[in-house]
């Protein structure tokens, strides 16, 4: 793969890979580092990239592995758990992360509701915008597995939203 092809085909994936890394780490700086490392690795492997059928799926897998490595290195998902439980203080989070802190916390809270397979399908479908067919290829699943897991994931989220809704209404009633 030439430099031009790399810039044309691989570089545009940067934003998707960032969002994927963010959904795994909830840490903006760490996610950016992961994306950079993934691209450097892809550059090193550029001679073999032409033979890979599902290039985006390959990039996603590389990003996931890199993110897991980083999380293991930084104390096994402590960042994710801290953010998800809202325990992280402003001093503990680097400046760059604070701008998206609330959003990342909210996304992480949604993801934490789901079991692993549903979480991964929700990530690819609703956070990265992949189609069901692409998800099948990336995760090596069949069409019905993707559909069923996506349906279950959304149903779980919907039930949580209903709970939140009812809780909000109750609060409004009690306050009035």
């Amino acid at each position, binding site marked *: 793969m030439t430099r031009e092809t790399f810039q044309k085909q691989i570089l545009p994936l940067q934003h998707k890979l*960032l969002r994927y890394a963010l959904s795994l780490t909830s840490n903006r700086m760490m996610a950016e580092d992961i*994306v950079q490392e993934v691209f450097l690795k892809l550059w090193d492997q550029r001679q073999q990239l032409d033979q890979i059928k599902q290039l985006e799926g390959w990039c996603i897998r590389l990003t996931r592995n890199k993110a897991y490595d980083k999380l293991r290195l930084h104390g096994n998902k402590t960042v994710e758990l801290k953010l998800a439980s809202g325990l992280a203080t402003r001093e503990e989070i680097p400046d760059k992360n604070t701008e998206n802190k609330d959003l990342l916390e909210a996304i992480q809270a949604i993801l934490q509701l789901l079991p692993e397979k549903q979480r991964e399908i929700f990530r690819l479908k609703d*956070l990265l915008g992949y189609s069901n067919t692409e998800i099948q290829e990336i995760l090596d699943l069949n069409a019905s597995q993707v559909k069923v897991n996506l349906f279950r994931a959304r149903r779980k989220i919907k039930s949580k*939203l209903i709970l939140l*809704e009812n809780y*909000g209404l109750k609060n409004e009633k009690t306050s009035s």
Partner: protein
Amino acid sequence: MKKRLLEKYWQGDTSAEEEDWLRKNTSLIDDDTDPAESAFFQQLQQFSELEMPADFGEQLMETIDRKEQGRKRIALFRKVRRIAAAVLVLVTLSVATYTLMQPNNDPILAEEEDPEKAYEIAKQSLLLIASKMEAGASFTFELDKFDEVHSKLRQESTSNKEVQPAVHNPTIKHQ
């Protein structure tokens, strides 16, 4: 339409375009949508707008160029090292070959295949050694003789010293 699409969404039946429409339109606060549902789509929309820094591509390519230059330098160093090693091996081999190809100037003492001639050579060699040994032995014999004479002289000189006072005393007596 929005309600029908939302139902479709929660059933997992929406297409990518419909989901995109939902994210963009349901996130807007209006009376039709539940606030929690609206917040959910708003979060999805905000998340989908997160991007890498604008200069990332440029910086990445600069990093790649730097890495490549470093690799080229290392590759050149390795090449030079390989050539130097090859030259060293060649020099060693040529020196070794040259040394081995040189004619041997050492005298051949007994390289004779004919047994009679070999016997003659061996005999002559042994005779030569014997004559040398004889000469050595005669020299040591002379040395032995010299030692013998030397010890005799010493003995005689000591015996003379012992006899001398007996010779002088009578002369004193005579005076």
